[in-house]
Each structure stands twice: as C-alpha cells, then as structure tokens.
C-alpha cells in the first residue's frame, strides 16, 4: 500500500513539478565500517564512500572504466614507468574547496601510508607528482599496465580539509582510534553526509554543486541507508514498502519479490567465483581417515572430486538458477578467462569412481569440509549439497559450517584440508588471482593459497607478470599458468555468483558486478 502511495506520489511529482525531493530508502545486510575512505578495503564501506567521495576512475555497471575525477589517462610517451592523469576542472568539495592535483598527490600518499588498507593495491607506485594544477604523474617501479584498475576504489580527499582537521594519518582501526575523517566527510561526490549512526541509519542528501549534475540522472536527492541483517526481515521490509531498494535478496525470495506488484528484481553476474580448496601440500592430513598419506596430493583424487560435483543441480536447486556453473576460478570479467576452460565442468560419477580406484582409493576416504555460513550466497547449503555429491564417489564428508570470522583463519593458518572460498577480482586481471591463490605462500604472495601447492616454475611466471609490458606476451603467460592450474585441478570451481537487487518499480538501475550501487546513475519515476 505504501509502495502504491509512493508510486502515486512519484507520478504526481514528475508530472506536476518535474524533479523534486526524492528519497531512496536503501537497505543491505551490512553497514559501512568507517567513513575514512582509506581505512578499510571492503565492499559496503566502499559503496557508501562512492556516494560521498570519488576516485579518479570508476567502473560503470558493465565493469568498464568511466572517467570520474580524471578525464583521461595514459602511459607517458617514452617512459613506460609513468602514467599521466588529466584531472577534471571546476570540481569542488562539499565545503567549497577546489579539487586540484595537490589533493591527488596527498590522497595517494595517504592511501599508501602505514594504517591504510588500500596500500597493497598501490605497492608499485614509487612517486606521485603534480606537474600542474590539473595533471598528475604516477611513477611506478616498473611498467604497470594495469595501474588504472587499482585506482577505481581509491578516493580523493581534500588536502586542506584533512590537514586542518588533523586527519592526515589514516584511521588506525586496528589500533582502535577514531579520527575526524572516520566520522566526518568532505568529498567531491554527488551526495553529502547529513547524519550517521553506525549500524542503524545513515542519511545522505544530494550535493547541489556536483560537477556531474548535467551528466547523470541524479534523480535521487536523499538517501536513507539502513542495514538489515536478518534476511527475512530485509525482504519483509521491501515487501511491505518500508524500503525502496535492497541488496542481498536471498535467492529463494526473488520470485516472491518479482511477483509482488510494484516491485522488481534485477540480476547480473557478480565478479566473484566460489570454489573448494584442498590441502595437497601436506604429507599426511589430520582431518581424514587415511594414515601416512594424503589422498588430496593425488591429482586423480582431486579430479575425481571435481567430477563428482553436480554444478547444474546446485544451480537449479540451491541457487534457483542464480549462478553460473564454473570450470575455472576466474569470473568471466577477468582478463585470462576463456569459455573453454570455464566450460570444463561436467559431472561424471562413473569416471570419478574409476579415477578414485586408479589412485588406490576405490573404497573412498573421509575428510572434513570447512565452510563459512555467513559469507557467500547460500554457502552452507552449497557445502551441504557437496557432502551428498562426494558421498556418491565414496568420499565421506564431515561438514563443519561456521561464521566467517572462524572460517577464514583456518585457511590462513593452514588448519583446514578441504575448504570453501570465494574470490572477487577487483583488478579484473588473472594476475590478482595467481598472486593470492596459486603462488607459493610466502610473505608477499600466496597469502590465500591454503592448498600448500608450490611450483617454483609457476611462481617465476607469476612474478614476471607484473612487469611484462608486452600485453600479448603477458596474456600468453597467463594462459600457460591457467593450463597448469586446470591440469592439476588445483581448486574445484563451483560457480560464479549472481547478484540480485530488489527495488520498487520506479527505481531504474542496472546491477553493478562489484555489488556497489552508485546512486548518481539511478533514475526514478513512472
């Protein structure tokens, strides 16, 4: 009923007065962790920051680059180690200060500083220098062809404002401190902060002086953001017309939302792949019933387990068609992804059984599967389904599902032998996947490689990617690395996640693959 009233109101407003105050009530499962744009590298935090602050470059809903505070960018002619960014002119912060090259230098240096959560994305940057008021040069430690990909969540702060409020140091969340910037904002973005109570409610209103006010719809003039943790309550809030837009719609409720008059569901593939990892590096593993050897170190066993997974059934039943079965652990957005590799995911229990028998495990073995229950879409249900599928080939799986805060340390500390993990690729490049998931674990790389897999030859290839400027040669290397990963069945891919946004039908938007709605693109009306 409320929705209808709102609709009527919207119609009235658009016909009678044209654009007027339009509030968008927005809910998702979690809240932003801090307002300091460099203190956390995490989805909900970046999403809120994207409304208030802006990076040099953003990604639109197709994942393509779009100019934000930079108008254009290119490697410097004659020096492959330097990127040149031309900045947008006439941009002001919410407090009226001008946006200049100095702010970019300041912001990048801030984001590279000790407490910043963004610094890992900027390790290749040696120096940032302003050549004039609206031109900035990024000097890297070698040619870095994918530098722009690392800047799409790197927000620009005003040097003067930040220094005046002694917030130059990034908020040290870990050291437990608050700074002026963690509870106040001054960005160039389309919205400015009105009020905020963490985990309860955040209100934003539109920025009248926004540089892009003629370029973007900017129909939304006020945003009321409420995190609603419990999925049923979140859906109920949308169904009863108490909110206009929700992220994280549970897959089982998509039908209900779509069938409700006045509500629509929008879906798009997410830049995230879900898979199982296996501890193949250990000589013997603790969580199985086989003594003295490690069944997972045999590639045939890994292959068999992968063959046992019925990805179509998971898609149809667990995910209600809201997933894309995967054959490799790279989402289709990523450079290096190929349709052939991603398609190699057929289920073949008979072949799997014979592989198991070849490997000497014809009678199977038992193992524990560690799984998060609050991180990925239906994570626990997927693992549960896998338990049944593994049972088909004699692998008895003991499922231990737990909150993410208990799950991820297991991977980190190598305390799990069989685990679920999901991986998003913000740089849209395979190198990112290899660095974290394939490279031998050491201080710099492989921090999420819980498989114990170590291949010096592959490591060398991975390390060479970051400075290979010849794109064709680089892509060739990427292809080589992938073929080893696939042959070894390093991981058991499950699927690429699909994102679902639910909204009232007057909200017009596309779903962004990063799950970060940018409300300046939203259109409202009829």
């Amino acid at each position, binding site marked *: 009923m409320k929705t209808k009233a709102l609709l009527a109101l919207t119609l009235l407003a658009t016909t009678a007065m044209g654009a007027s105050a339009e509030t968008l009530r927005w809910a998702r499962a979690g809240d932003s962790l801090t307002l300091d744009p460099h203190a956390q590298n995490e989805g909900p935090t970046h999403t809120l920051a994207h409304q208030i602050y802006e990076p040099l470059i953003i990604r639109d809903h197709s994942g393509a680059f779009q100019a934000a505070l930079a108008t254009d960018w290119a490697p410097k002619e004659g020096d492959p180690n330097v990127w040149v960014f031309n900045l947008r002119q006439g941009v002001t912060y919410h407090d009226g200060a001008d946006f200049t090259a100095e702010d970019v230098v300041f912001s990048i240096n801030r984001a590279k500083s000790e407490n910043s959560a963004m610094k890992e994305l900027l390790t290749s940057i040696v120096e940032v220098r302003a050549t004039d008021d609206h031109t900035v040069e990024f000097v890297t430690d070698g040619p870095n062809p994918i530098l722009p990909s690392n800047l799409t969540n790197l927000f620009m702060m005003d040097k003067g404002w930040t220094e005046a409020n002694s917030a130059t140091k990034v908020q040290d969340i870990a050291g437990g401190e608050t700074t002026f910037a963690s509870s106040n904002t001054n960005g160039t973005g389309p919205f400015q902060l009105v009020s905020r109570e963490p985990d309860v409610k955040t209100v934003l209103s539109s920025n009248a002086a926004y540089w892009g006010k003629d370029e973007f719809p900017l129909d939304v003039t006020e945003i009321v953001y409420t995190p609603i943790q419990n999925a049923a309550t979140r859906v109920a809030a949308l169904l009863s017309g108490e909110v206009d837009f929700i992220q994280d719609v549970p897959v089982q409720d998509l039908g209900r939302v779509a069938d409700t008059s006045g509500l629509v569901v929008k879906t798009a593939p997410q830049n995230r792949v879900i898979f199982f990892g296996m501890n193949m590096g250990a000589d013997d593993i603790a969580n199985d019933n086989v003594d003295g050897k490690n069944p997972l170190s045999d590639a045939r066993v890994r292959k068999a387990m992968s063959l046992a997974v019925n990805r179509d059934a*998971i898609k149809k039943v667990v995910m209600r068609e809201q997933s894309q079965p995967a054959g490799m652990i790279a989402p289709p957005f990523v450079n290096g992804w190929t349709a052939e590799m991603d398609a190699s995911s057929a289920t073949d229990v008979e072949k799997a059984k014979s592989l198991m028998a070849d490997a000497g495990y014809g009678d199977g073995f038992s193992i524990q599967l560690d799984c998060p229950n609050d991180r990925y879409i239906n994570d626990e249900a997927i693992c549960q389904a896998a338990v049944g599928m593994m049972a088909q080939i004699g692998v008895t799986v003991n499922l231990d599902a737990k909150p993410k805060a208990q799950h991820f340390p297991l991977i980190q500390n190598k305390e799990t032998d069989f685990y679920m993990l999901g991986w998003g690729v913000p740089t849209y490049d395979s190198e990112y996947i290899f660095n974290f998931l394939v490279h031998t674990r050491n201080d710099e790389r492989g921090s999420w490689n819980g498989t114990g897999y170590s291949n010096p030859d592959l490591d060398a290839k991975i390390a060479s990617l970051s400075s290979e400027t010849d794109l064709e040669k680089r892509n060739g290397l990427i292809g080589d690395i992938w073929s080893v990963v696939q042959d070894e069945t390093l991981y058991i891919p499950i699927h690429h996640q699909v994102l679902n946004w639910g909204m009232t039908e007057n909200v017009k938007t596309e779903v962004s693959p990063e799950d970060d709605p940018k409300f300046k693109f939203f259109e409202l009306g009829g």
Partner: protein
Amino acid sequence: MAETPIEGPDRPSRLAQFWDGDFMWSFRHAPVAMVSFAIVVVLVLSAIFAPLIAPFDPFNPATLNLMNGFTPPGEPNAFTGDSFFLGTDDQGRDVFSTILYGMRISLFVGFSAVFLAMFIGILLGLIAGYVGGWVETIIMRVADIQLTFPSILVAMLIFGIAKGITPAEYRDQMAIWVLILAIGLSDWVQFARVVRGTTLVEKNKEYVQAARLIGRSRFAIMLRHILPNVLGPVLVIATISLALAIIAEATLSFLGVGAPPTKPSLGTLIRIGQEFMFSGEWWILFFPAITLLALALSINLLGDWLRDAMNPKLR
C-alpha cells in the same frame, strides 16, 4: 539413547503410592492431560523408532538427490518424478523422515539436558540442605547468580568455549553434547532450590532423626529418606524444563550454535525452514514447526496439569 521418559522413583512401594488414588483419578478426569500424554507418547515413540518408521535416512548423504529439493508435499518432483508425503527440503531430504530424525535429536538433547540439570540440582540441593554451613552458602550463592544470569547467554558462553577446545574432527558429533551441557548447566538451579527447601524441612522430622540415631550414614539418609519426598515437585519442574530445553535448543540454533544442518534437530529445521517463509515453500517450515509446537505444548500442558495435581489444595 537415554530417551526413557521420567517415570518417578524405582521403588515399587513408593511408585504404587505415587500412582495411587488421587493422582490417577485426577488424570482420568483431565481430558487435556490425557490427550497431551497421548501426543507425547506417540511423538516420543516415533522418534525412538524413527529408523523403522521413516521411509528415508536423511542423515545418510549418499542417499540424497539434490534434484529432489523443494518437492511440494504429495506432488511428484518436476525433475525426478519422485513423490514425498510431506515434501522435501532445500537439500532434497524427505521432510517427514527428517522431522522424525530431528525430533530424535531434539528429544535426546532435551531429556539429557534435563537429566543433567536434575542430577546436578538434586545433588547440590541435598548437600546444601542437609550439610548446611559454608557449603550451603556457596552452593546457594552460585545458584542465585546462575538464576539471574540468562540461560541463553550461559549456553552461548559454554558453547563458545566447548567448541573452541574440541578438536576439529570431533566438532560435528560434539555439537549435540555441548548443547546438552550448555542447556543442562543453565537449568539446574530450580531443582536445587526445591530440593534444598524440602530437605531443610524433612531433615528435622522425627523419622530422619531416628535414622540418624540408629547410625545410618548421611548419604543413605539423603538417598533413602529425603530424596523420595522431593520427587513430586522435581517431576513437575522436570516436565516444564523439558519443554524449555527443547525450545532453548531451537533458539540456540537460530543464534548459530545449534545442531549441525547435516544432522538437524527440530530447531535447526525451523531455522532453515524460516528462510523459505516468503518464497512459498511453506512445508519446509510448517511441518517441523507444528511438530515442535505439538511436542512442547503437550509437555507444557502435562506439566501444568501435573503441578495442579500435585497441589491438591488448588483443585
């Protein structure tokens, strides 16, 4: 499994006395009590004999076919053509079988937790009442604190710690035992209070003093003379605690500290089922919830009647 219902003391003379006259008369004239009793008996029996009654074994993952998921009650599945009496859940498990097996776990947890609480409560209550002195002070102090400290928080604390110190490979099986421990430990106080109260009264009675004079040991006196007198009120508390324990298990499962989804209890089934409340698969929530309701309500009604029956003044 230790699912024998509590049937009072094992001494026939007392038992006969207990079931004598008033009590049975009251039972025969309370239709609500009789119906409740019948429901509880049927549910408990079907839980005990679940492996014989249930058409499927939902705890054996090898028998599951994921494609059977979300089959409505009595209708054939769109992919496999299989049909299930009460439908299937999100994993393709037969809801009817899963409820029977789940109830087995719920009842096991409930009964065991109550036995644990009863054991601790009676023991400490007897000691406190009979021994007195600083022992009593300490016991009753702890009881006071325990009483004010909310049971679900106690349960969460115990669950958190126990899960942490259990080796990973046993966690799956441990969950049930930890639940029993958590619920049982948060529930002993009422027993202790009642037992202590009765003990204080009884210990000064002549027959107890006489027993003491003829040289009976403290332990024997407590066991033979005082204990039988407290069994009535203990039975009432135990019945109501049983319903509470079953509900507590369900609540804990909502907070993520319940039975694992691969071996679900009724509470876990409800927690999973409520996710499908808006989506039209009502049977996944409805049947487990109605079973839990029937079970807990019958036990509660029985406890209610029992309390009145034990207190003839109220009749």
